[in-house]
């Protein structure tokens, strides 16, 4: 099963390699990884999307907690959460495609952030399913480039069961 882990770490030079090395060394998967500073000086938040059965996920979480530079690990699957990912897509946009592309942009509530006579760059945000659907739809025009941020996640304020 797919799990999203929020990992709060000390922001020191080797920390990314400690976490990445743990995954590669123990044969765990990383589907996506996002790292950025938090409001607290000296710490960063990593959001890791990984894949595995219950026992593997349990090991991953325990192994992460064991790293001296890891402060806190939350399995976001165990809470109500908001998950978002952003993608930039450069698609072929010859005149006869434009209207249809713009319709899709509208439906998916994304933005055109750059345009030329033959291409459009689209910025989209959403959960992974939404982005996959968008990418699928745009595929037929020809996607020239793609850049995704990887998932970030946040616990919802209301944790209704």
């Amino acid at each position, binding site marked *: 099963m797919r799990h999203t882990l929020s990992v709060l770490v000390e922001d020191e030079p080797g920390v990314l390699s400690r976490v990445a090395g743990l995954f590669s060394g123990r044969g765990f998967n990383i589907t996506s990884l996002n790292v950025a500073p938090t409001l607290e000086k000296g710490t960063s938040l990593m959001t890791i999307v990984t894949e595995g059965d219950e026992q593997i996920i*349990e090991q991953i979480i325990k192994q992460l907690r064991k790293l001296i530079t890891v402060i806190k690990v939350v399995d976001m699957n165990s809470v109500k959460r908001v998950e978002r990912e952003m993608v930039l897509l450069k698609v072929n946009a010859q005149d006869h495609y434009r209207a249809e592309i713009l319709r899709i942009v509208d439906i998916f509530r994304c933005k055109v952030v750059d345009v030329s006579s033959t291409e459009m760059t689209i910025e989209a945000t959403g959960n992974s399913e939404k982005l996959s659907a968008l990418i699928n739809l745009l595929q037929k025009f020809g996607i020239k480039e793609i850049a995704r941020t990887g998932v970030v996640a946040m616990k919802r304020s209301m944790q209704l069961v």
Partner: protein
Amino acid sequence: MKMKGAKILLECLKDEGVEVIFGFPGGAVLDIYHELPNYPFKHVLVRHEQGAVHAADGYARATGRVGVALVTSGPGATNTVTGIATAYMDSIPIVVFTGQVPRALIGNDAFQEVDIVGITRPCTKHNYLVKDETQLPRIIKEAFYIARSGRPGPVLVDLPKDVMASTIEFTGYPKSVHLRSYNPHYHPNQKQIKKAAGLIFESKRPLIIVGGGLISSSGCEELLWLARKLKIPVTSTLMGLGAFPGNDPLWLGMLGMHGTYVANMAVNHADLIIAIGIRFDDRVTGRLDSFAPKAKIIHIDIDPTSIRKNVNVDIPIVADCKEALIALKNEIEGYIKEEEDLSERYQSWRDKLDAWNESHPLTYKKSDEVIKPQFVIEKLYELTGGDAIITTEVGQNQMWAAQHFKYLKPRTLLTSGGLGTMGYGFPAAIGAQIAYPDKTVIDIAGDGSIQMNIQELATAVWYNLPVNIVILNNSYLGMVRQWQELFYHKNYSATHLSYNPDFVKLAEAYGAEGYRATRPDEVEKVLVKALNSKKTCVVDMVVEKEENVYPMVPAGASLSEMLLV
């Protein structure tokens, strides 16, 4: 007070209580070596950095204190990697200081530069590159704290040369450590302890398995109480040998791949396993789906990652073994009625185990013609009365040492279990002998393994260490040959040591004493000479060439599928 970085390092080590440093110098650590003679440390100059780390590790295993090694950058640092990985796999507390090129040159492929922090990240508990000289005291304090606390392990501190050479303000060695993200959990959850005690009293066929974690927690007295009070039979992993006296009637011998018949049968038939400080290694469990099929499992371990890593457990207790055993004792005392005769409790279970032990004892085919390696180990036990520190190399020698010597006290068997490092035993023996100059220290070796760190003979002789190396010389890489015999149609590819040096002459060339025995009736005589000698001794025991270690559970088989003699 203003001080040079190198001096600050040594001041900190002094305050840390370090007494011995195993090391080997080089350019990047010259500042440290320049200051070293002004300090009260015993510095042991080895002949190879791998030897320094194994010696620090042997010192740590024998004493329970943190072992310290000091080496230079580049090749000095890379030579420590096997030693560090060995300590890591067996959870042994050591701190390794490596020299590094000056900060300004890091990343430039400078002379003797290597990213040792990167290289050792996966085989240290934690490691540091000291980038800011003002952080040096804090880092040293943390390094020792991390190495020894919780699940112990090796910590490496990389010291750029200019950090050691610069002069800075030193305000003293920190008194305490503040690590926000590292708080080992020593105290057991009382609810789990209650459940565990309940299970013990419900069970009909309980079995205690102890491991290296019990030794590291110094909880062996508490184990004695539990086992003897309730008369529960005890087995142990290789790493747990010595945690429970090997001459106690409740002792079943080691379990696992080369464990005793009775210990493995006990695992198969137990209805409750109390696992204390073990990590359920594949050499211990055999095929996982048939491990302990009838048993509920209580697992005490300080490291949550050890729990449910390989084996599902019913009652996990994340705690220090000693603390957990104390809590368990308090709980169990409440269950015991005063007039109750506890010795009756598991009597029929113990009778069953005794019967297995009698029908399939640990044994071997004896001989009057050739020296049987097992016989040598038995003699060593007889001659020392078990009052010795045994280290081993890796292979058959190690397994015979595990099976045929009776370990009576914790920290008397020092062996590389997890990594299985040939060449470990001799430098580890040096470390142990440095810690206990008056104890008998014996490295039980193979003719293959001993050649991996034989250069340390110079170290042992120079420091007058009466270490005994007993080589079970079978002219083979015996353990590998055994696997070839059993599973590769006797195709002895690259395992015959068709050329070996004359170990007696080699010993003498180094200034040690060399002895040889080729017949069973010479064994005792030669061992007595070596054990009574105050010098470093090498005993070349020319043993049966194709002897196998039995019992044996083939890799991947279940514990009940033992090959016997």
